[in-house]
Structure formats: C-alpha cells, structure tokens
C-alpha cells in the first residue's frame, strides 16, 4: 500500500511539475495569450545557436510590431526529422504562416505540403527548401554574389595566385553547397586562372573536427595561401588554428563569420576581412514576408513588391533553383575598422 501510494505521489508530482517546468523555463510563445491573434511561426535549424537566436529575434520584432503573435521553435539537434515533428505541432496549432530555416532541402517537402494543404503559408529563410515546398525564399544575400565576393577576397589576399582551400560545414549543408558551387564557377573565369582550389574540407560545424581539418589542410598543402570558410564555426576554428601556429600574415583567412567570434582574429590580422549580414534584419524581413503572404498582398511570384517595415521596399526576384526569393541586400564586410562596433551586437 505504502509503495502504491509512493507511486501515486510521484505521478502527481510529475503532473504538477511538468506545467511548472513549462512556465519556468519559458515557452516559445511571446506576447499575448492563445486565442484571437494570428500566430506566425519560425523554425530554425537548432537551439543554442546565437546566430539563429538573433534571426528569430528579428522575426519576433517584425511580427509583434504588426500586432500579431510570434512562435519561435528549433529542434535540439540540427536534423530534418526534428523539424518535421515541430512542423506537425505547428499545423495542429493552426498557425497562419510557417517560416522555415531548413536543415534539409528536400526532406521537409511532404510535411510542408501537408501544411500548405491545411491553409498555412509556407516560405523559407536563410537555408532554403526546394521550390515545391515553399511559396518563396528570403535570402540574406544573393548566393552568386556571396560566391564571387569570397573568391575576389581570396584573390586579393593571395596576391593574385596560389593555392586556396575551402573549409565548409557538413557535406549536406544546403547554403554552403550552393555557395561553393558558385565559388567553383567563379574560379573557372580567366581572371582567377592562377588561383588553385586544392581541397574542399568538411568540418561538420563541429569545433574539434573543424580544427582537425584546418590543421590537415595546413599540413597537406604547405603552399596554401588562403582558407575560405563560409561557415561561422569553421572560420572561427581556422582563425584559432592559424593564430596558435603563428601563421598570421603567411596564410590568410576569409569567409562568413560572426563578428563576435572573429573579433580577435580580425584585430590580429589573421583574417584581414570577412563577410556576413545582419541576421536580425533577415528575420525581420521574414516577418513582413509572412504577413504579406497571409494577407494576400503578395503571393510569392516574381516581380511583386511589398514594404518591409523599417527596411523599406523589397521585391521578389527569380531564384537560382527555379523558385522565387526576396533579397535582404549585399553581404556586409567586416574588417579591422568596423569590427569593434559589431562584435557586441552579434
């Protein structure tokens, strides 16, 4: 009897503790109770990612200043399976729109189609999904431009000729693979004929693996002049490796990185300059795309124009993968002159 009582007590404790835990650690719903206001959801790649948090924060700001409720979700592992589960939950909550930052270009198609059939407006942001899954895509910068800008930077740092290497994220990453394709296309141009891409290495966005791959590049290719790392984890890892080995000034680094992570390496000169964009603005733009789609102001077709709050007017253009996209703007350059201003922002 006593033991059965204990079991019942523990079950009751859990029944009380669970909702308490929910409210204590916070839910992804911000602003207002459930019910009247329309809900707009953004699903990022994974939790614990400050870049993603900034993006979702920008989205939330944009949604709330229009008077609606924002839901911010992300799986704890950067998998498509995790995002599928979240999208199912959002469909049950009958949200108005889903903004997805995809972990996989194709694997979300069935569940996003289900969302579309339920009347939810679906579009992607940052890391896109295939055109069949989305109405449109919010791109932080022109993918081709990112590719050409990075190669131009490498050209500049290498002094016109030499070996360069790319340190990427996972081999399956949508964004990186797209940019690398454009980088390779750019390298085929006659201007860059003296630049030699020796290897594309994958650091899997893991610190230790990125460090090993960076060290491997340096050991295998002693004439390496530039490392291009179009991923925030990769570029920070490469920066640390170059600093620890005292190669600043002999091997240069560029790519896409977070100002906070790269401040030390930009100031020391290991990375003369790098690029990124403001993730807060990307999310903010996404918020206006969401409301625009739901209100019917835009339908995701090429040529449509809309106003994105503080950011001003934007138009929908043709995307390289056959669908449509909205661009935030050109990639932003971080160097020793402006890094001090940006390192505390994100």
């Amino acid at each position, binding site marked *: 009897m006593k033991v059965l009582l*204990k079991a019942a007590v523990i079950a009751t404790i859990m*029944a009380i503790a*669970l909702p308490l835990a*929910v409210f204590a*650690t916070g*839910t992804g719903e911000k602003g207002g109770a459930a019910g009247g206001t329309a809900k707009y959801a953004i699903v990022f790649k994974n939790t614990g990612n400050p870049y993603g948090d900034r993006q979702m924060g920008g989205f939330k700001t944009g949604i709330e200043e229009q008077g609606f409720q924002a839901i911010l*979700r992300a799986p*704890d592992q950067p998998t498509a*399976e995790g995002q599928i589960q979240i999208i199912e939950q959002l469909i049950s909550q009958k949200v108005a729109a889903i903004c997805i930052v995809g972990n996989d270009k194709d694997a979300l198609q069935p569940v996003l189609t289900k969302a579309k059939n339920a009347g939810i407006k679906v579009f992607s942001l940052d890391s896109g999904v295939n055109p069949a899954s989305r109405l449109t895509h919010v791109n932080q910068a022109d993918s081709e431009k990112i590719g050409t800008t990075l190669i131009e930077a490498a050209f500049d740092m290498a002094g016109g000729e030499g070996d360069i290497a790319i340190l990427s994220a996972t081999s*399956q990453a949508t964004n990186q693979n797209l940019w690398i394709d454009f980088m390779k296309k750019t390298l085929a141009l006659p201007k860059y004929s003296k630049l030699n891409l020796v290897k594309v290495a994958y650091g899997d966005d893991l610190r230790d693996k990125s460090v090993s791959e960076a060290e491997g590049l340096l050991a295998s290719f002693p004439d390496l002049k530039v490392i291009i790392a179009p991923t925030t984890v990769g570029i920070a890892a490469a920066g640390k490796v170059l600093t620890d080995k005292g190669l600043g000034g002999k091997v240069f680094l560029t790519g896409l990185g977070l100002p906070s992570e790269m401040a030390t390496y930009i100031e020391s000169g290991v990375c003369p300059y790098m690029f990124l964009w403001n993730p807060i603005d990307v999310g903010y733009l996404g918020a206006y795309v969401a409301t625009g789609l739901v209100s019917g102001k835009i339908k995701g077709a090429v040529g449509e124009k809309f106003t994105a709050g503080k950011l001003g007017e934007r138009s929908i253009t043709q995307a390289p993968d056959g669908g449509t996209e909205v661009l935030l703007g050109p990639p932003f350059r971080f160097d020793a002159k402006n890094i001090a201003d940006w390192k505390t922002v994100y």
Partner: protein
Amino acid sequence: MERAIRVDKGWSWRTFFLQWEWLLVLIFIAVNVVNSTLSPYYLTLDTFLSTPQTFLDMAFLVMPMTMVIILGMIDISVASTAALAAVIMAVCFHAGLPMPLAVVLNLAVATACGLVNGILITRFKELSSVIVTLATMIIYRGIAYVILTDQASGDFPKWYSSLGWGSVGKVPIILIAFAICAVVFGVLLHKTSFGRRIYAIGNNLTAARYSGVKTDAIIVTVFVLTGLMAGFTSLFLTSRMGSTRPNVAQGYELSVIAMVVLGGVSTSGGKGRIGGPLLAIFIIGFLNYGLGLVNIQAQSLLIIVGLLLILSVLVLNLRFRGRAQRSVPSAPKPVDSSEPTKRIP
C-alpha cells in the same frame, strides 16, 4: 536479511499492480492529463490517430532492441543500418529498379547488416556487442556517404509516400504495421521457446549454452531481426521525408535505447517485457507532441525527458526497499570459455 529461496507469494492484486508496466500506464495517463490542460488542441481523435505517424518510424526499432537488451547486449548501429538501406534503395530505384523491388532490396540490405553484426559478435566472442556495433555503426553510415556523397535522392512514386502519410480509413498505415509487428514480437518473446531462450541467454550465457541452447544461432537471429526492423524504420522514414541522404536517422539509436530502458528492460540482461517499451514509445512520443503544442523550448524538453527517465526508475527501485533484494544487477558475468581463468590484471 537475504533469503536463499524466495517464497512464491502467488498472484495477488498487489503484485499485479506493482509492476513497472502499470507505473508506465500511470505515467501515460499523467502525460495525457498534463497535455490536455496545457493546450486546447491536444484532446482530439486526430491527435491520437495521426500523431503517432510522427514518432512511430523509430518505434519499429524498439521491439528488436528489447530483445537485444534482454540478451544482455546492445546494438548502436541500427540508425546507420537504416540510413544505408535507404540510400541503396534510392540509388537503385533511380538506376532503374522498380520501386517494389527497391523496397525489398531495402529490407534485404538492412537484414544483411544485422546478419554481419550477429556473425561478428558470435565469431569473436572476446568482442563485446558495444565495440562491434560501434564499428559497424561508423562503417555502415560511412558506406552511405560514399554512395550518395552530398546529394539527396528522392522522387519516389506517389504510392510510396502513402506508407508514411496514408491511412486506411482513419487509421494510419504506419500504425497498422506497427501493431502487427508488436503482436508478432510479443508472441515471439513471450510465447515461444525462442523467446524463453533469449531470457535464458540474458540471465546466464554459459549456463544456457551448456543446457543445450543454441546460443550462437539465437544471437544471430536476434540481430538479423534487428536489421530487418531497421529496414522497416528506413522505409517509413524515407516515405515521411520523400527523399533520403546519408545523414538520416541520426541519433535514433540513443532514443530507442532510452525508450527500451524506460520500458523497464534491464541492461544487465534477462529481465523485462515487451509491454513496457511499447508503452514508453507512446509516453515519450505524446509528451514530445503535447509539450510541443505549447511551444516549449527544446532544451526544456530535454530536461523533462531526463527527469522522467530518472524519476520512473527511482520509483521502481523504491519498490524493492522493503524486500531483501540484491542491489546489484542479476547474475555475475559468466566466464567465457575462450578466455583463461579471469584473474585480476
């Protein structure tokens, strides 16, 4: 005071209800109560019928994993097997193989992977199942990467997506398949001599062998079954995603093991029943879903599931406080006949 012979108290309401499975039922009810109070969207027929579609693909692995753990072993290569089978199926389909045959190929590949595990483990008895399946886990997924590199492969025929998304009437196909497998495994484990022998091996491998149980054959069979079920998981997961890549099903093995241990199966072998893990699947699945309906953050969910796991085990252990129960895992590890007398190194 330790008793040499445990007196059989016979059946009573008390012993019936003090089983782990009933605690799980309690927890399941508690989870549903909490979920309903948290969100108005929860308590619908649709929830109970269609939500399982989201987590049942993993569930096919829980049943053979129960057997593996009762054997006293473990298999962490299941997710990689699923990935490899899916990749090969997709590639062969696009090379011209008709889809039904590709599906069969998927199951064949997965079963073969399980067979390899079983053979390695029984041929090299010095190696624990941990290290063998760890190696094959890396190898199988590695092969998947070699085959498909950084591409995705999809575009399956329309009927294939109904595996993961379709229903017969209101009941999802995946739920039907799961139910059938659950019954089959339940019968296998609890009503056949095959199942009894699994328990025997789990309790004392050497004693089982010398009692005439064909331990090698049974171990290989269990791992082959695990491979086959990994194939099922692969089929349903690929259908849910409409495409596949080498990195699918990542992390599945740990979730499956969590469900099995939550279901009361002891990792020291020889104890546990199929009912527990089956309940655990739904507990974790619905907990996930219900809390997701109120948009709880992923990290909070992590903490909650962790607490759930520990608290439920604590309750079960409290149960045994009154009795004179050995507080160490079942039998001492048997001496392997291929090793000389075990001496402290």
